[in-house]
């Protein structure tokens, strides 16, 4: 079995740096992390210095994702030896139990941490994750709401809540959670865009108008966000065709939709570079936009 360093012609420093990038940007490419991380640990542990502990943690979680209990146990063992009695390591032990579907034992482990330290957010979030894994969405949502009452600034938690609500088709509450995120992160185009999608899904002319505004806002924040561009096109088209809209609103929206359509076409042309496959895509997009052309009444 060829080693990663042989196959991709990389040095151990590059492997370590890649792991750091994946860690900092929160990637969940677990198979790759296991491949690179396992080799780094086995062949180059002595060169890593203090980095090795955070790498053990990262590789352990990725190993759980890939059902590599052998590797996870090895990493956990090294961390337990080095950081005896640590809550952070105990949480990892709990995650391993979760991966083995031994939820009751994991639950108990997290409760032990919380008894020692009632402000330990990691343990509380793992308990909510267990509820989610068991399909107990209503309880997970309830616990997450309680958690957020105490830890109002936890972005990750607000986003998780929004997604739980979307999965339960409770779009109004999802919108509320995303509003919290947008308030604290006004420059994040992804939150804007997802909020617009939720509003669109809720439906009705007012929500469509809001959705169009937020798609436009997302586009302003990042003019390469294709979802925002498509969303702007769709919402403006629907409003332009809606019997409930006034003549002026309809006229304005038909203009917005036409602008969005031209931008979409332009984006596809830029991406095209004349390959046969993307030519098909471009043609399909052109035809789709033509067929959806809303004529002003």
């Amino acid at each position, binding site marked *: 079995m060829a080693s990663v360093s042989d196959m991709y012609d990389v040095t151990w420093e590059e492997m370590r740096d890649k792991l750091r990038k994946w860690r900092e940007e929160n990637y*969940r490419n677990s*198979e790759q992390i296991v491949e690179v991380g396992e080799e780094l640990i086995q062949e180059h542990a002595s060169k890593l210095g203090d980095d090795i502990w955070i790498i053990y943690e990262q590789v352990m979680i990725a190993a759980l*994702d890939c059902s590599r209990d052998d590797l996870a146990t090895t990493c956990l063992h090294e961390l337990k030896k080095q950081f005896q009695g640590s809550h952070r390591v105990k949480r990892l032990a709990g995650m391993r139990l979760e991966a083995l579907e031994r939820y009751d034992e994991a639950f108990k482990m997290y409760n032990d941490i919380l008894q020692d330290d009632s402000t330990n957010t990691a343990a509380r979030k793992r308990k909510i994750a267990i509820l989610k*894994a068991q*399909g107990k969405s209503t309880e997970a949502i309830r616990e997450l709401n309680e958690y957020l009452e105490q830890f109002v600034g936890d972005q990750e938690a607000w986003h998780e809540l929004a*997604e739980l609500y*979307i*999965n339960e*088709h409770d779009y109004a509450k999802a919108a509320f959670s995303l509003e919290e995120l947008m308030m604290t992160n006004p420059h994040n185009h992804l939150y804007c865009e*997802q909020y*617009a*999608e*939720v509003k*669109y*899904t809720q*439906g009705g002319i007012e929500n469509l108008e809001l*959705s169009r505004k937020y798609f436009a806002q997302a586009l302003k924040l990042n003019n390469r966000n*294709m*979802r925002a561009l*498509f*969303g702007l096109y*769709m*919402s403006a088209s629907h409003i332009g065709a809606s019997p409930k809209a006034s003549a002026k609103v309809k006229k304005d929206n038909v203009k917005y939709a036409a602008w969005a359509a031209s931008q979409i076409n332009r*984006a*596809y042309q*830029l*991406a095209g*570079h004349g390959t046969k*496959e*993307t030519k*098909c*895509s471009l*043609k*399909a*997009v052109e*035809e*789709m936009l033509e*067929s*959806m052309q809303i004529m002003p009444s």
Partner: protein
Amino acid sequence: MTVIKLTTQAYCKMLLHAAKYPHCAVNGLLVAENQKRKDGQPVLCVDCVPLFHGTLALAPMMEIALTLIDTWCKENKYVIAGYYQANERIKETRPNQFAEKVAARIAENFSEAALIMVDNSNISMGCYDPAISVFEHHDNKWKCRDASIDCCEDWSEAQKIMSALLEDRSYDSLIDFDNHLDDLRNDWTNPEINKSILYLC
């Protein structure tokens, strides 16, 4: 009741999509050739277009995808014949409200549309059993079809090729509509994977 069958290409791409994002829910469309069928002839889904991964239950991108793929279908004499979904949780194999809505929308255009749920627990390297459940529309409800009816045109071929694709980690290069929206150059028709499947046949 018309029976739905999948070609190897449709089945494999669908499962590759699920394999690429094991921690997410995924969904997509199935397309069939648009032709008159004789009575009793099964609907053959010849290809699959993977759509999204992660948060599925939002309308706008789904509408775009349906419209765009419908246009593409017309150019290629296909018709959208089904919708598949793999839920986030391994043990959750029933369709949710969103899945039923999308499938119902497809059925408006193609009365024998199928709703296919991927059975996550049956996905394995060896591919011993077909990892899907087919739901058909009866009396306004989606009912699960008898599992003993063969869902693939040629199960042993599909099984062999699926296993080879998983070993090769072909799912790493599978493109879904989400990937396309991230970068328009990504081709959701997956011509390279189609070639690999043809080559393995």
